[in-house]
């Protein structure tokens, strides 16, 4: 009896150690980033590397925000992500509602189109989209990064639509019988019901825009318009890299995404699994 108990405890300990080892692989790079950002230059370039700084310093953070127009880049990143979230939350649920709850003939074909566009490699539309924005004189502004969201994002439309199919029709019928217009039904009944899906869509869009590299790379040339994704390269010199300030800036750049993650954690998991498990 006692033996099985201790065997179980041993097993539990073994499992915990295995899990710790696995999780540490994912956490360790964050420790390196944090450690480097608090180190003095001499300490950054010490071999072998040390995880705990010899002297703790905030110098890298000062350099990170003063050596490059960090606040401008941060403002641009916030503006791009904020607008993209706002736009997608206006448009995507409208389209999702049409696909989930309005009985019209075009809705199945349209749903197929939405799903098909999710499979199209972005490289196919990349060149003509650039030419389109270039022709409209909108390159070198954040417009190409945010305006498409105002027309709905296929993946998010699909996700919200999946959620809305689960909202009972009786709820909508009751409102319609009471004489509510379709808009009013949508606004007062459906949107409040869809809150979890809307939050998930919002945080997904935020993280995409916040972490995006390719689109800012293609569209932004004027340094005053740079987002942090593009601006961080300023710490790379001809032959050297200022690793201390770069890691400090990276840490500051990561923190907003981390906050969103911690606050909305349960919505992330629901959102990721929604697409895969039916």
């Amino acid at each position: 009896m006692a033996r099985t108990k201790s065997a179980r405890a041993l097993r539990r300990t073994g499992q915990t150690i295995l899990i710790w080892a696995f999780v540490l692989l994912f956490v360790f790079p964050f420790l390196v980033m944090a450690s480097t950002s608090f180190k003095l230059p001499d300490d950054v370039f010490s071999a072998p590397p040390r995880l705990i700084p010899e002297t703790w310093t905030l110098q890298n953070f000062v350099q990170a925000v003063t050596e490059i127009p960090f606040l401008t880049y941060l403002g641009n990143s916030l503006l791009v992500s904020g607008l993209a979230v706002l736009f997608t939350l206006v448009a995507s649920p409208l389209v999702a509602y049409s696909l989930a709850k309005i009985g019209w003939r075009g809705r199945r074909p349209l749903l197929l189109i939405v799903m098909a566009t999710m499979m199209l490699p972005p490289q196919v539309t990349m060149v003509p989209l650039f030419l389109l924005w270039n022709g409209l004189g909108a390159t070198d502004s954040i417009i190409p990064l945010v305006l498409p969201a105002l027309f709905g994002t296929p993946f998010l439309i699909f996700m919200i639509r999946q959620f809305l199919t689960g909202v009972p029709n009786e709820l909508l019928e009751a409102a319609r019988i009471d004489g509510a217009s379709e808009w009013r039904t949508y606004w007062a009944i459906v949107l409040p019901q869809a809150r979890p899906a809307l939050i998930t869509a919002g945080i997904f869009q935020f993280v995409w825009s916040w972490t995006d590299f390719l689109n800012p790379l293609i569209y932004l040339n004027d340094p005053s318009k740079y987002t942090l994704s593009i601006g961080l390269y300023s710490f790379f010199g001809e032959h050297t890299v200022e690793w201390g300030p770069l890691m400090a800036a990276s840490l500051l750049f990561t923190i907003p995404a981390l906050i969103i993650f911690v606050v909305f954690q349960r919505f992330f998991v629901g959102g990721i699994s929604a697409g895969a498990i039916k």
Partner: protein
Amino acid sequence: MSTARASRRGARRQTLLGLAFASPFIIGGAIFIVWPTIASALYSFTDFNLFQAPRFVGIANYSQMFQDPTFWKALVNTAVLTVFGVPLTIVISLVGAHLLNLPVFGQPIYRALVYVPTIVPAVVGGYLWRWMLNTEYGFVNYFLGLLHLPQPLWLDDPAWGKPAILLMCMWTIGGTTIIYLAALKEVPAELHEAAQLDGAGFFARFRNITWPTISPVTLFQTIVTIIAYLQIFTQPYLLTQTRLNESSGGPGQSMLTYAMYLYQNAFVFLKMGYASAMAWVLFLITLVVTLLLLWSSRRWVHYGSDEER
């Protein structure tokens, strides 16, 4: 009579409503998806450098690809990354999901920590790994040294560039792992308990119960991961970036991927026609691989309904 007319009027009203609510996507899809797709197909048959009007060249862009050694280099690099990256992603995610499914204290925190790297800005991840892979001051080689393992030159060695990319990609498999975790929850616990009573070990139970049950999820994840690897751009670009708008592609272009070469053609060499043709070839490759996988899935994917056989 009148009810039929009324219902016809009702149907028309529904159609108008449906169109109205869907109008953002109908308009936006036409502008940002359908038109660019058509235009891209047309550009792929032209010589176009942004400053002069496109000139029709027939299939010249497509035939040029066959003779372009850099094209082949990029294609082979991408294929190598896909062939190694996809199985690694699936296996590590599956192992990770099993570990994170064990009922230990602090489980939700461990799950969150494994997922967190996926929400880190791509540039941050790229530069962080460049730093960790630094041959003199980086932690990766430091640990390899502690274990008395060889310390490669990573980003400076043509043989080690691709492993470096894969290493960086493995850091962000949290999404795949979380999906597998959700799938594991669907595996009937009674089956496991019954098999355990019959004396089946962990691997026998995994092979006969878990693996068949989660095979539809594996199919989905394999397809999504393959597509991601075929289009891989950001990670290798950041690891070999030499200027803001340029990346070297690593020593001997050993880290130049298909999407990187496509980007170069479009925005560095301004060969818009050639880039468009490359995009269509990529699309076709993606389509063929996906269809092959779906076709093969009949042999190894088990859906609930045909369990009765």
